[in-house]
């Protein structure tokens, strides 16, 4: 009893000398890099604002056509004017950003989960398993994914955010799987993995406690950069007309109004805010991603 108490006080004393854990290094790196810091604050506040405000807006109400308010310029009633259906652009912008972000985050999460799982398995076990999984990855890479997504959207009559996320995720996991696999292949040759084996740890335990913590930095960086890319792909598809229908606004649908020359020249309020927003979001997420990438490589760190 006395012994354990002693150990406890000892633990308390030495607790204060804990060295900085990984996330603190990430944080200092971002704090040092002013551009990344501003970007992070911007992204977080845009997200908070969009998700917060959209709680008070009703999507059905906003997308309802109002024939008495077609193409109105910004005013106190309609902060950012209205489109050809008399629908409030400000409301569409908020809901659209929310939809785009949700799609981007969900696709990143799902494709990340698939990619990390397969990448870690391929890299850790290597050999035949690696060979088979990498051929599957190659197969998915050669598929013309844009074409398949478009065909899917044409065939399925009533697609929702959920099915759109699924179809995009199916074609987005290969990149992260390859990156994670290559890093896992490198890590698995290091002695600490072999040491764990000789100390009696099982494969599952080694993967979760030894391998994945050492891959975490590259996973965080890739996921962040993927997030920007996935938001872009969603907007791109919507712009082409293969994304969400007009009843589900997104950043892409708003920008696609600019394909009408009159709108492009005379009704800037419809497409300019959405374009700026998507530009700012992509740039900021990329900046944060770059700072995270630097933080994971001690040689490039600024802190």
């Amino acid at each position: 009893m006395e012994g354990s108490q002693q150990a406890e006080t000892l633990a308390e004393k030495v607790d204060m000398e804990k060295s900085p854990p990984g996330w603190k290094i990430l944080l200092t790196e971002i704090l040092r890099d002013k551009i990344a810091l501003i970007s992070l604050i911007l992204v977080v506040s845009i997200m908070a604002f969009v998700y917060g405000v959209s709680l008070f807006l009703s999507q059905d109400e906003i997308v309802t056509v109002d024939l008495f308010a077609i193409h109105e310029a910004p005013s106190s009633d309609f902060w950012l004017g209205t489109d050809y259906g008399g629908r409030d652009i400000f409301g569409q912008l908020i809901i659209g950003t929310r939809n785009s972000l949700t799609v981007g985050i969900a696709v990143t999460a799902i494709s990340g989960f698939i990619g990390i799982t397969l990448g870690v398995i391929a890299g850790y076990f290597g050999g035949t398993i690696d060979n088979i999984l990498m051929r599957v990855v190659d197969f998915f890479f050669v598929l013309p994914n844009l074409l398949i997504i478009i065909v899917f959207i044409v065939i399925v009559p009533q697609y929702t955010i959920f099915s759109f996320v699924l179809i995009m995720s199916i074609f987005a996991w290969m990149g992260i799987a390859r990156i994670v696999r290559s890093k896992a292949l490198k890590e698995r040759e290091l002695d600490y993995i072999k040491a764990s084996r000789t100390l009696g740890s099982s494969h599952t335990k080694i993967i979760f406690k030894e391998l994945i913590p050492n891959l975490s930095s590259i996973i965080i960086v890739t996921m962040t950069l993927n997030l920007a890319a996935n938001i872009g792909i969603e907007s791109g598809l919507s712009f082409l007309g293969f994304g969400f229908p007009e009843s589900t606004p997104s950043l892409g649908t708003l920008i696609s109004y600019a394909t009408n020359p009159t709108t492009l020249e005379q009704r800037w309020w419809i497409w300019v805010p959405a374009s700026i927003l998507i530009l700012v979001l992509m740039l900021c997420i990329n900046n944060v991603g770059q700072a995270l990438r630097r933080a994971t490589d001690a040689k490039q760190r600024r802190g």
Partner: protein
Amino acid sequence: MSILTINNLKVHYPIRGGLFRRKIDVVRAVDGLSLELQRGETYGLVGESGSGKSTTGRSIIGLEEITEGEITFEGQNLSELRYRDRKEYYKDIQMVFQDPYSSLNPKKRVKDLIAEPIRNFENRSKEEELKRVQELLEIVGLSPEVTYKYPHEFSGGQKQRLGVARALALNPKLIIADEPVSALDVSVQAQVLNFMKKIQKDLNLTFIFISHDLGVVRHMCDRIGIMYNGRFVEEGTAEDVYENPQHIYTKRLVAAIPDIDPENRKEQAAFRRQVKEEYKETEHNYFDENGSVFDLKPVTDTHYVALP
């Protein structure tokens, strides 16, 4: 009774090539090695790079697939057991790795590093576990204050001590030290080696000491096996090998040990020249027509040499 017996161990790696990646040849990393180890002794495995000494060590602990042969630990043939059953025996065999920089997980704190084997094999409460970790740190001469540090905050010698502490955590009977000091500078080498000798005496450990540093091996080992191309060329007590080398390969190795005493400089140079002459004249007598080593033949009770 001997603690570990190796009987005709072979570890071959396939070389694949041609159509359908057929097995066209094999690399004979270890090719027919037999060895008996008594409890409490230190056995030195010596040889040049690629002579199969590390492969031997790794196959004892199960990191390499054995092509042929038996490894018997305390009367139990390890290669017959499946992984799950083998685990119990591996509790008694531990390894100290060559590179202290890569053998410790950089993301784990010292406490978790050393507690890993304890968590795998013993059921202890948090306090008991912490107490055991700090006990082990004390054995290897580190203060308990380092419990919550990361490996990169230590010097090479301290890291190697952490590796030793981890290997000691389960009170093993046999420790395989794979060039435990070759990555360290000389002053730290002495520190780690003397410390290993001390714990051997205190805890009655058996060591297999893999090294290519002949000075270190002489300092540490009771018996020595000299390896070449996956086979023993000479085996005997430290005295047999150093004072009375019989095989030309061993003679050349012993002649290559540097002596810093300037008094003996001329004699040393003469001795080296003499061994070189002998090597030129008699080399073909010691190897068969394929260039591989003969089987061991007893010279005295303890001394075995591979002669035709």
